């Protein structure tokens, strides 16, 4: 416990110093609010608009969560198909990697044209797609990158393919799934925000940030940014908690991999 506190100290000190400097810089150089707002002003805005920010966070958060779940389910299902049929993998894997390299969330602009203006579906589809590829690539790796020694052992026990899948490939893929979730959780939140920049209902954190900036309400925009950070953090923390409860000693297991 003590060592945990000690580990937490440097970032806390850094954070406090950072905000103090920021506050001081705004005061000393008399920076105009449209250029940079003081942290104290942003905090005021955050406190005053708490319920509005919460409402917007719920909209974006729901989109992110729905997409995260749908993308995970689809990604896991597809990775099973891929590991079963090698030919599929040869087609899909390069495609997945290529799609990961381009900012596919611009697709939301196209999707927006396909649904009604108030629909949340395009944003959720966007999140689903981003999460889907992250989960697919990682879980497929976990299902296929199994130690050759372990496969030979299973064959020496006369194990059928189905038993190898259940007893070796699937458990081997579990840590990979959680790694994928840790990457996907923040990515889902970011994708949900960014999707809101391309039109549609103006009810989420992302669209509130842009609309406040458009109205020169800089401190309010920053207050929504703060809300966005907290939402992203919450998603990340939950993904870590899920991992540590589902695979006790998970981190140690990876670092201390036995041969």
């Amino acid at each position, binding site marked *: 416990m003590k060592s945990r506190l000690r580990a937490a100290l440097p970032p806390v000190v850094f954070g406090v110093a950072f905000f103090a400097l920021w506050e001081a810089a705004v005061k000393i150089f008399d920076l105009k609010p449209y250029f940079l707002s003081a942290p104290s002003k942003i905090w005021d805005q955050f406190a005053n608009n708490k319920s509005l920010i919460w409402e917007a966070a719920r909209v974006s958060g729901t989109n992110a969560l729905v997409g995260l779940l749908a993308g995970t389910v689809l990604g896991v299902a597809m990775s099973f198909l891929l590991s079963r049929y090698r030919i599929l993998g040869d087609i899909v894997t390069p495609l997945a990697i290529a799609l990961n390299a381009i900012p596919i969330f611009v697709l939301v602009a196209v999707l927006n044209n396909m649904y009604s203006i108030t629909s949340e579906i395009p944003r959720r589809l966007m999140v689903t797609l981003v999460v889907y590829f992250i989960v697919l690539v990682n879980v497929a790796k976990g299902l296929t990158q199994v130690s050759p020694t*372990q496969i030979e052992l299973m*064959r*020496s*026990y006369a194990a059928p393919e189905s038993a190898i899948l259940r007893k070796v490939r699937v*458990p081997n893929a579990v840590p990979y799934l959680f790694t994928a979730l840790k990457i996907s959780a923040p990515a889902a939140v970011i994708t949900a925000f960014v999707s809101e920049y391309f039109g549609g209902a103006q009810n989420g954190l992302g669209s509130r940030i842009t609309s406040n900036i458009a109205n020169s309400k800089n401190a309010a925009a920053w207050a929504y940014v703060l809300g966005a950070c907290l939402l992203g953090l919450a998603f990340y923390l939950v993904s870590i908690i899920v991992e540590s409860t589902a695979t006790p000693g998970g981190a*140690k*297991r990876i670092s201390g991999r036995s041969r």
Partner: protein
Amino acid sequence: MSTVSVSNLSKIFNEGKANQVGALVDVSLSIEKGEFVSLIGPSGCGKSTLLRLIANLLEPTSGDIVVAGKSAKQSRLDQDYGMAFQQAGLFDWRTVTKNIELPLELKGWDKTKREARSREMLDLVKLPEFADHFPWQLSGGMQQRVAIARALAAHPPLLLMDEPFGALDEMTREHMQAELLSICAATGTTVVFVTHSIPEAVYLSNRVVVMSPRPGRITKIVDVNLDGHCNETTRERPEFFAAITAVREALRASGSHGHTGVGVEDR
């Protein structure tokens, strides 16, 4: 009746292609029940290939293999042998007990029977207090002992080992060799053991099969007679050194040791 009988066995990889390899050519070998036989030779001489053919993890190009009185395939399906490799190959997500129980699960044993057997095996390899540990919490030597316990869990008449102690330090290795001998003496298991250490082969075996590469074949079989194995002073006795010399000379005569100095260790 011999436990393993191999006759006129050949294995050619990539036959008819540019990268064709004659891994084994016309190998015949018979291993009696309860015998401990080592395969030794420089890398690439086909030791692992011969072991995998006996295990039916590979199909021969030609020749016959009889294991425990049946075809190699049937004896694999009946789990008539246990196997251990240089990598312990334990499953990180299973406790030590559950690792040992895996082959029994696949045989369809019920829970009580499996648990009783894994307890027995843990006593045999002297790790009873580590039953509920995970593999990554054990040292390399302990992991290898669990792998041996797992290989012997179904009480197979035959144990196939491919350089199982190759990754261990010298002290642990000698200790494991002594333990393996006492386990085999207690269970009456027949062992085929691949190694590239001459002293290891001599210390463990009743017979040392010397092989040479390109193409892989058996060049000599050295009988070792160190009656009363399992003894601390074995490694200091003149018979031990005499047998080491005999194996080294057989390796040199087959042109696989001495000139090149690669592949086989003197330690």
